[in-house]
């Protein structure tokens, strides 16, 4: 095994591993916040009684969910520069993740909103709250609590999907792994460590989701 697996790679290239890891976390968190806001807006559009908004929400969700993430990222990384708007890899990758994940989060939230009894909306409206107030203070808090496990699942996907940044030189973990692997000629070692870095992020999240799902389902029965 000598020469094939070398633990020193981690120590010697620690700074670049860390740099990539931090960018991966950064991109995931920014994209999560962005896609949560965008996804909530789209979910509200999707269920709104106002036809054009409703249509726009449906088209967004159906279109984005059926095309690859890479295509969305390429729109920002290759498409916008061709129109004279240059974006770097990190920015276009993170924007792509945001726009893509928003479609999935919108579906989660829409499903959540539908579980809130319509009597609550009617009661809120009857007491004088506006539509926006009703949504913001009555419906959404309940809906989001219900779909928290599925939104957390989307966050796990987001962390994994952030590896797409490497395709557009987005300075993430996979991107730096490529550089380190080219320097050391030890891809087996480098990518095993990279896998561990990803697991450090995704495994605790998965366990959290598991715990939430179990607690929620036992609260139901």
């Amino acid at each position, binding site marked *: 095994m000598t020469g*094939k697996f070398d633990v020193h790679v981690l120590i010697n290239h620690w700074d670049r591993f860390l740099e990539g890891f931090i960018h991966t976390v950064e991109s995931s968190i920014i994209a999560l916040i962005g896609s949560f806001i965008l996804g909530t807006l789209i979910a509200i559009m999707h269920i709104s009684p106002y036809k054009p908004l409703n249509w726009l929400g449906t088209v967004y969700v*159906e*279109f984005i*969910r*059926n*095309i*690859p*993430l*890479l*295509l969305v990222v*390429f*729109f920002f990384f*290759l*498409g916008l*520069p*061709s*129109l004279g708007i240059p974006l770097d890899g990190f920015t276009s990758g993170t924007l792509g993740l945001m726009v893509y994940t928003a479609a999935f989060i919108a579906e989660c939230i829409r499903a959540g909103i539908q579980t809130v009894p319509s009597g609550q909306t009617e009661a809120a409206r009857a007491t004088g709250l506006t539509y926006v107030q009703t949504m913001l203070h009555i419906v959404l808090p309940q809906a989001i609590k219900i779909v928290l496990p599925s939104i957390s699942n989307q966050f*796990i996907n987001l962390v*994994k*999907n*952030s*590896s*797409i940044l*490497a*395709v557009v030189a987005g300075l993430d973990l*996979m991107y730096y792994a490529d550089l380190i*692997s080219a320097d050391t000629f*030890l*891809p*087996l070692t*480098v*990518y*095993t460590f*990279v*896998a561990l870095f*990803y*697991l450090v992020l*995704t*495994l605790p999240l*998965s366990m959290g989701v598991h715990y939430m799902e179990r607690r929620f389902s036992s609260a139901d029965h």
Partner: protein
Amino acid sequence: MDFAGAYSWPNLSFILQGFGVTLIVAALSIVLSFVLGTILGILRYTRIPFLARLLAVIIDLIRNLPLLLIIYFIYIALPQIGIKLTPFWSAIAGLTLFEGAMISEIVRGGLASVDRGQIEAARSSGLGYIQTMRYIILPQALRRMMPPLVSQFISLLKDTSLAIVISLPEIMHNVQILQGHSLNYVIPALLMAALLFFAVNYTLSVIARKLEARRV
């Protein structure tokens, strides 16, 4: 933006060729990952003491890794221990492994949703274990598994584009090459790729919804 240039026959056929590779890789991976996922799902369902636990850990690890990393690992790192695969087979191996792990969870869930009392009833009426699985449990489980399975296959088709990192000549790879010819081709080429993916996946998701509606 130059739609006429981007959709001239040489360029259009180049994009379509790429989509052909995408479809072939996806189709092979769907078949292989379904076989792998079914075997793993059944093995986990049987609760064989040591094996079921071990499989659970391995499947969880795979499911929590980026597919991009898995594909890249197979293509770049495995040659170091003597396993050399072409980009075509690296992509299929990566997709099969990752989606197979995902599908095994769907299969296990589907099997678990069939009441265990049915096994006992089937066994006590004289059917063997294999017969019970084959005629009683699997048909019911398969019906419940269809909608999530189709969603997983839609993901698989989209994920095929990740093989761009190992230079598989699939559609996104070809779109990127067209960008090298002219910046004006980028948006039209991306649009064409989006429409192709959308057409196939939307059809699949309509089928999935039909299946789901029939179940209720």
